[in-house]
């Protein structure tokens, strides 16, 4: 079942004959299909409609991407980046979170699926074979949700065995969905981490439209745990609002009522942050959003973040609640300065390489233990 509404499919003629295109069309045979030659005009036409972001989420574009689809995570200046790599088999997402950066970042409003799969797999293969490290982390959840479109575009079902066979690199599937049934039978050899973005139920209801509930996400995580997948959780973005402490503490309690902390390979913490242009876009689309009501100020990279004192307080408290469950949980901060790391953990990675080494050690220990 598709929990979102697609109204029309556009197929770039270059992608028409791909087997993956045929598979997508089989699953959506009830929908009108329009063939297009080149996508630029189509995108231009949609961008001039009154609400291209909402309309785009209801239209599927099947096409090819001949550019690089495996890139280092862009990170942000003056902040510690964890050496992550992003893979983009698709762009945009059917879910509609008020804080989503893609609203500002993408210049193509369609749910876009790239069906030149062989090119992507070759790119990943070449990248992995050139790496000395065995535990580089790569994820598909940056420019889309890794699993939201899985029922029509089974990319994760292709990538999981691919990474298992290579035995090099770690694939992370980051999601706010509960679409995991199709993954359960796969042989992942612990080379795939399935991870969920978590927020308290109130934040999910108010700010994360079209996503699975907290209960559904945790139930999906439990199924993956049973099948031996390493699990990840991302408290990101944390929204600082009245009563945040009670809500996040309850969320952590709910998480570990369902999940064994020993099966959690990592947990990230990140306060809400946004580039300046996002606020105007979001306020037009989600008038009642509460995400901008905190004390948020621009930094050297022009992105707005909570006052440093507030961020440190958030992270210290979250860390305390997590360590009370299991002091061995591996917790890291996403895009934070060394100073904030030091104040939260009492130490900080020296640089990106150092942080990457810490992740490598963590993964080695986690996989050998299990």
């Amino acid at each position: 079942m598709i929990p979102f509404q697609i109204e029309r499919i556009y197929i770039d003629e270059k992608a028409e004959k791909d087997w993956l295109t045929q598979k997508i069309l089989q699953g959506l045979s009830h929908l009108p299909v329009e063939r297009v030659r080149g996508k630029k005009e189509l995108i231009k036409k949609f961008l001039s409609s009154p609400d291209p972001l909402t309309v785009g989420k209801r239209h599927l574009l099947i096409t090819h991407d001949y550019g690089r689809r495996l890139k280092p995570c862009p990170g942000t200046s003056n902040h510690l980046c964890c050496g992550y790599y992003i893979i983009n088999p698709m762009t945009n997402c059917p879910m509609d979170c008020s804080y989503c950066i893609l609203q500002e970042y993408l210049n193509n409003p369609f749910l876009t699926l790239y069906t030149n799969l062989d090119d992507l797999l070759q790119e990943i293969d070449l990248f992995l074979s050139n790496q000395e490290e065995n535990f580089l982390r790569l994820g598909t959840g940056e420019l889309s949700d890794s699993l939201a479109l899985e029922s029509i575009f089974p990319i994760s079902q292709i990538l999981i065995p691919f990474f298992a066979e290579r035995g090099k690199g770690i694939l992370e599937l980051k999601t706010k969905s509960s679409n995991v049934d199709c993954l359960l039978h796969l042989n992942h050899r612990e080379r795939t981490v399935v991870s969920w973005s978590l927020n308290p139920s109130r934040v999910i209801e108010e700010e994360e439209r079209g996503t699975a509930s907290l209960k559904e996400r945790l139930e999906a995580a439990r199924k993956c745990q049973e099948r031996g997948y390493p699990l990840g959780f991302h408290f990101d973005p944390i929204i600082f609002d009245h009563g945040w402490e009670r809500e996040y503490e309850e969320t952590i309690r709910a998480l570990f009522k369902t999940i064994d902390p020993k099966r959690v390979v990592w947990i990230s913490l990140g306060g809400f942050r946004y580039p300046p242009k996002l606020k105007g876009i979001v306020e037009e689309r989600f008038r009642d959003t509460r995400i901008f009501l905190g004390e948020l100020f621009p930094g050297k990279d022009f992105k707005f973040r909570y006052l440093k004192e507030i961020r440190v307080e958030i992270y210290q408290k979250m860390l305390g609640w997590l360590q009370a469950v299991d002091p061995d949980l591996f917790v890291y901060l996403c895009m934070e300065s060394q100073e904030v790391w030091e104040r939260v953990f009492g130490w900080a990675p020296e640089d990106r390489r150092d942080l990457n080494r810490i992740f490598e050690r963590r993964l080695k220990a986690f996989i050998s233990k299990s």
Partner: protein
Amino acid sequence: MKSAQRISLEEIDFSDETFSVNFRPELERLRTSIGKIGLIQPVLLRRKPGGYQIVCGFRRLWVLREFGWPDVSAIVLGEEKEDLQLFEISIEENLTTRGFNPVEKAIVIDKFIHQFKIEPSKVIHTYLPLLSLEPNEKILGTYLSLAQMEEEVKEYVLKEEVSRTNVRKLSTFSKEDRKILIPFLSSLKLGESRLRELLNLLDEISRRDRIRVREIIRHPEIQGILSRRELTPSQKTERVKKVFLELRYPRLIGLERTFEKRRKELNLPSNITLSHSPHFEEKEWRIEFRFATLEQYRRALSFLSQLAEEKKFEELIKEDSNGDLGK
């Protein structure tokens, strides 16, 4: 073209505003003109059961009634003419003679949508350009919201030449809040950007704390500022803004205050300034000094060198001190 005829003012239904789009019309010039040379253009009326309906010439007829004229030169149309067609004639006529103020544009647009039931897309593409407005949904929404707001808001918008952005913001507040908000804003001196700033602060405090805007305005501190007669509107505006900022950013303001207190305790000479990074984001401090003579330069260096030995200075800049500033 029909020829004009004399129609008695008593037969004209002044209460029928089907085709009126006037808002606070400026009649003085018209009074002078009619008083001096009389009525040049006949008004346009439509026959209706028991009298006449005004299509074009509301202002002229109001002035003539004031002057006590018994009748008026008018072109009279038959009852068969359709309302929409006459409304369009009235708009065209007004555009060629006087133009519309923003509230009148809002009334025109509102009538097209709600009285004449014209599709929004047609209003956007046909009538917005006619009124010299950009043809898009946002503009349509802005003017519709203005038309639906209270008379006091419309008057404020006209008087203060409030921008569309601020009109949109005003429309997001409740009617009850606007009733308190407009007199409050009128008592201050607000340019466009200061108005936007105050409206945003009020909106964000109200939504964050889940309290009504009118409760914030009734805050004793705000009322205290407003009641001080010795303050000019500009001074009141600055003080009100300060209170709003304290309510909106309590943690940042707390840090600023503690920093100020500690800085004062250092008794820095007037030519030496100490400042923190913007919003305390970076763990760094900045010291600047001015000098005109070598002697002043030596004194500044000597003071700075002694400052390094000061415990209070060390406390201010020590590693975790910025975390404690607000506590």
